[in-house]
């Protein structure tokens, strides 16, 4: 899922600095398959990159589609030519057009997506984060022929993707493009918690709490996941955030960490 922030945007005094510190602290310096792109409008997007394995899935789907179209074309031509050899020429022309034109056409027309990429949730973007244009679509697919099956059995493409930090094959390098994942993460609905310790804490909290995206996500993730863990593990996990929240809202120190997070979640997402 892409996340976007505006670079050097004026920060609102309360929430923004807290959020930025929290985001930086999460997984600093560790390896991940994501890329940060700054568009010409200075908007920063963070996308998961598609490496060779995710792209292989989309590639296989596209090849299946091409072969399915070719099967239909071949049958139609064979019927029209009444089984004669005159159908061979149009079939070869159709194969040439499909194998060289299908991906470039789709990527140019459908904003960096072929059918296979759409099914796999991938999209081709310029390496500065904007949508690709028609010439980029053509270049990445024409030069990309060198990455393919012949003559070196995908080795140039694999080697190039292995060596470049953005998993770019030769066609991507020539056209200045990358392939990213566009996940539409399904969000679970709001959960209502009716445990007594949580309800007891609610009067201590203000009716509405303005939480930034980091705090909201942390609370939401915890509440949705807490049923998987035992009480001791819940306390251990929740205490990291419950301590500062107790101090911020003057909550009773004996309130369990789990109840504190659930109560704050209730106020953030349900108000009342």
């Amino acid at each position, binding site marked *: 899922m892409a996340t976007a922030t505006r670079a050097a945007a004026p920060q609102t005094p309360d929430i923004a600095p807290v959020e930025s510190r929290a985001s930086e602290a999460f997984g600093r310096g560790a390896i991940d398959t994501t890329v940060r792109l700054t568009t010409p409008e200075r908007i920063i997007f963070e996308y998961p990159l598609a490496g*060779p394995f995710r792209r292989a899935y989309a590639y296989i789907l596209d090849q299946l589609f091409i072969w399915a179209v070719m099967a239909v074309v071949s049958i139609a031509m064979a019927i029209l030519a009444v089984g004669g050899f005159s159908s061979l020429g149009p079939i070869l022309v159709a194969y040439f057009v499909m194998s060289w034109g299908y991906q470039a056409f789709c990527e140019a027309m459908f904003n960096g997506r072929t059918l296979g990429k759409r099914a796999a949730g991938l999209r081709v973007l310029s390496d500065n984060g904007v949508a690709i244009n028609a010439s980029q679509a053509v270049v990445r697919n024409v030069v990309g022929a060198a990455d393919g099956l012949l003559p*070196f059995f995908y080795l140039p493409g694999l080697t190039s993707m292995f060596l470049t930090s953005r998993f770019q094959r030769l066609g991507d390098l020539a056209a200045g493009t990358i392939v990213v994942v566009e996940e539409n993460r399904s969000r679970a609905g709001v959960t209502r918690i009716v445990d007594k310790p949580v309800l007891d804490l609610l009067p201590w909290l203000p009716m509405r709490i303005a939480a930034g995206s980091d705090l909201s996500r*942390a609370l939401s*993730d915890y509440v949705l996941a807490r049923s998987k863990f035992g009480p001791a593990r819940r306390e251990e996990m*929740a205490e*990291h955030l419950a*301590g500062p929240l107790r*101090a911020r809202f003057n909550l009773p120190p004996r309130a369990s960490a789990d109840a504190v997070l659930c109560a704050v979640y209730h106020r953030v997402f349900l108000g009342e």
Partner: protein
Amino acid sequence: MRGGTLVVIRERTFLELLDLSLATVRRRPVALGLAAAAGIAPFAALNAWLAGFSDWTDGWYLLLWLFESPWATAPLTVVLGGMMFGERLSARQVTWRVVRSTPGLFVYQTLLRGLSMIVGITYLFFSARQAFLNEVLLLEGGSFGRAMKRSTALCAQRGGEFLGQWLARIGFGLAFVVCFWLGTRTLLGALTTNTLTWRPVDETPFADPLIHFAVWLAIAFMAITRFFGYIDQRIRLEGWEVELRLRAVGRAQQGSLR
């Protein structure tokens, strides 16, 4: 749980784990390459020696690779386990951890796996229910008898998925071996001759050292993927991602209170 992990702690899909493995090899090629070579070299030499016998048939290679892969990738798994939490292990420490796990590896990965292979279909049990046996034996230590129980607990509820992942790893591995072998042969042919033509495939492809190199490369890579699969499963079961998020936000909230 300490900070400063090798990879960002979050739940990932299987294809993401494969891509992550590639990114990790790119970032740490020397340490991972040496660990893989140290584990693989003795078995590659053993296979070459065995292949010299007159009654040798190429089918034995498949059996050998199946039995040898948990042993050959043991040093790599130990090194990855250390790297994951910022621990730099010396060669002596890696050797000691592998030696310490030898009885468990022998009983589970050789005897039990061998028995299950005789029956045939039960071999799938290992892939579904004991997917992370190597990681448990090598990285978690603990009592010898506890390993299988722990491994089963890790795979509970996702056994079918892990079986599918095992099959997918084999599929990707095979595809890589074929592409690497044919592509490298063609490339070498193009560099050493004047024409870019395909050389005919030998009657015994296993006589070509390139194919052995490709197989061991695939086995080592898939061991890295399996390790990340193990970490991913622990992230899911033990709530590491949620805990790290709570800790990061808690720290930020603490800072804003000052």
